[in-house]
């Protein structure tokens, strides 16, 4: 049973449904949909099986609108909006697919591939990678930008896990899950722009981190092979994210 179904059940049974919940109706791709006022366009699109590509967003964590893959068009507004943080409004007309959007999405994925060393053939996450899936789904067959081929280190100091900066897309999922769910805040971002890099504590070796609880949540939410379990070989690293759905649901259950 999906998270959404569980949630709906709770609301159907309970008398604790807040009376202040407002329901709005709006359109996605010309199709009328209804939503609670507090929901985002991405929430509603998923409920209605409308696909919007995402990378930095994970259900259960806060949304940051950083990867720009979920950008959608809203009729009457010149700018594009990230669906993951776009609040629904009565009567708004959202378009999730257009030639322009597909082009931008493809280019953003291309840019990501050019940024670091994403070599699927030798990657532990080959076949289970969100970036790879996105490229396939969006039809990215070539990267036209020059590969930057940066020299990036691997942090294998942790006894169970490892961090390969070459595969990192800086989505900050690991930072958020560690901060928001585990409450340890081991991870953070260092430097800025193209030099940005994920660090443990104050840029220490992960293995010597005093805040890390070895819970592995960061590894499981990582979309690529940047964070992985030691001992996994090419294609072997599958990620298990069920815990997030469960934890989020428990948080949302009215008490």
């Amino acid at each position, binding site marked *: 049973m999906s998270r959404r179904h569980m949630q709906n059940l709770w609301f159907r049974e309970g008398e604790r449904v807040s009376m202040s919940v407002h329901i709005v109706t709006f359109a996605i791709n010309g199709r009328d949909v209804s939503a609670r006022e507090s929901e985002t366009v991405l929430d509603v699109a998923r409920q209605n099986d409308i696909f919007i590509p995402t990378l930095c967003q994970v259900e259960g964590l806060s949304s*940051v*609108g*950083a*990867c*720009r893959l979920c*950008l959608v068009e809203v009729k009457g507004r010149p700018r*594009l*909006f*990230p669906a993951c*943080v776009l*609040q629904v409004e009565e009567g708004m007309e959202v378009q999730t697919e257009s030639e322009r959007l597909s*082009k*931008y999405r493809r*280019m*953003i994925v291309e*840019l*990501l591939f*050019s*940024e670091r060393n994403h070599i699927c053939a030798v990657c532990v996450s080959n076949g289970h990678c969100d970036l790879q899936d996105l490229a396939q789904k969006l039809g990215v067959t070539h990267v*036209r*930008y*020059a590969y*930057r081929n940066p020299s990036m280190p691997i942090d294998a100091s942790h006894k169970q896990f490892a961090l390969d900066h070459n595969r990192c*897309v*800086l989505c900050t999922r690991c930072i958020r899950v560690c901060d928001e769910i585990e409450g340890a805040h081991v991870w*953070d*971002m260092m*430097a*800025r*722009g*193209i*030099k*940005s890099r994920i660090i443990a504590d104050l840029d220490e070796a992960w293995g010597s981190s005093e805040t890390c609880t070895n819970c592995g949540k960061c590894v499981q939410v990582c979309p690529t092979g940047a964070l992985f379990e030691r001992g996994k070989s090419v294609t072997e690293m599958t990620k298990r994210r069920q815990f997030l759905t469960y934890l989020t649901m428990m948080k949302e259950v009215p008490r």
Partner: protein
Amino acid sequence: MNSEELDKIVEEEKRSRQSLEHEICVCVAAGCLSAHSEDVKAVLEKEVKQHGLGHQCKVKGVGCLGLCASGPLIAVEGGEKRTLYCNVTAQDAPEIVGALGKEPVKRLQLPESIPFFSRQRKLVLENCGRIDPERIEEYIGVGGYSALQKSLNEMRPTEVIEQITRSGLRGRGGAGYPTGLKWSTVSKAVGSRKFVVCNADEGDPGAFMDRTILASDPQKVIEGMIIAAYAVGASEGFIYVRAEYPLAIKRLKTAIHQAERLGLLGKNILGTTFSLSIELRLGAGAFVCGEETALIASIEGKRGTPRPRPPYPAESGLWKSPTLINNVETFAHVPKIILEGGDWYARLGTAKSKGTKMFALAGRVKNTGLIEVPMGINLREIIYEIGGIPEGHRFKAVQTGGPSGGCIPEQHLNTPVDYESLTKLGSIMGSGGMVVMDETSCIVDVAKFFIEFCMSESCGKCIPCRVGVTQMHDLLCKITDGAATMDDLALLEELCDVVRNTSLCGLGQTAPNPILSTLQYFRDEYIAHIEKKACPAGICKISGSEKESA
């Protein structure tokens, strides 16, 4: 402090000024300080003492006199007369003191009738070069805090907002959002706590408007902030100033302290029930922290990265409370608008851009410095009359709006300076940087400079800005190295499009502007680099190009 006590300070200041025959005002703003104006001031003080003029003549440090290129600048005021001296050295001091009350020293004199001065219209800068920025009494003496007095005693918050709305004032930070509308939004937002924030994280290369205001007349900004806080119902204020401005910070600290001492900040301002505290916050060197949501994160003690809007800070800003954020220059306009009325202010400028705008005029002009001109003035007037092109050189383009702006060529110089016209030309008003270029500048190189700036200042949060701008920079390097093909140019244009339309904040969204505007007007220079492997200005080091140009 109540209104009567404020009036008393005005009287005292008037009296002490009337007892003086002469005032020697030495510019102690950043430009002249770097030309050793402090030394000049010290010698002047010594000379005045030696001449036994201590009681009739006062030497004081003042804010920017404008023509930074000719510093150190000194203004000698005596009775109705005001004499301006330029390029003054410590050796000139005895001569200047000797000439007090007599004929001015001709060889140093700078006539105030030159277009650099006569073309300007000073509202924000009215006190700059006249008052000591480290004495609140002098500010009060020239009418300072009377706008606050008027607001608190005679106007309701809604009336203050109405005057600002009527004035047509728009945000001077760059985007030009109507100030009255912003104030009204914050005033209507619901929250038990509200904040007012002054954005002094000026970071455009070559821009120093905010720095000059803060170092020359900090009280004006504080007064503007207090009025704004009263209008929107805020009780806490922050000034976010970049740490690279030590002088501005020092004077701001002094100014806040003095205002607190006089009860113009703190609890029960001017004896009313209105209270406001203002704190300084120093930026740690990130350009992106000038973007309002990143600035908020930084004040909250977080990593300074922008977040998607909406919600806008007016609704959910500092610690999720309604927050009014305006730029230094915007706040500095406020006291005058309150005193003279919104309608008076709206008479200045064009249909949609009112009042005056400050520019930091730099580059290939004779008179580099800080200017304040009425909106609607032509670019040509600014560049040729106020600035002046050096003999033997030919104007090529003017870059406005810093890294978010663009280059405007000769054929568009008759354009009036206002938000819409500059945007139409592919540039922006921006915060007020204005860099003039002549034939010795390579336009591709200029674009590369600004892209390099955006690349190193990108926060790295969103992909188009982090990677896209880096790729744009690499392509520009390829062009200036003479290694690019026409396909690279097409790719560059495609990147400009994606970065502009998909980036998270203003930094990324406007980063392509320097490339797009130069491609619009100087495409042939790009093509010369690509196809002929030559840099027309001779700046880019393309192997073999020297042979061609010889």
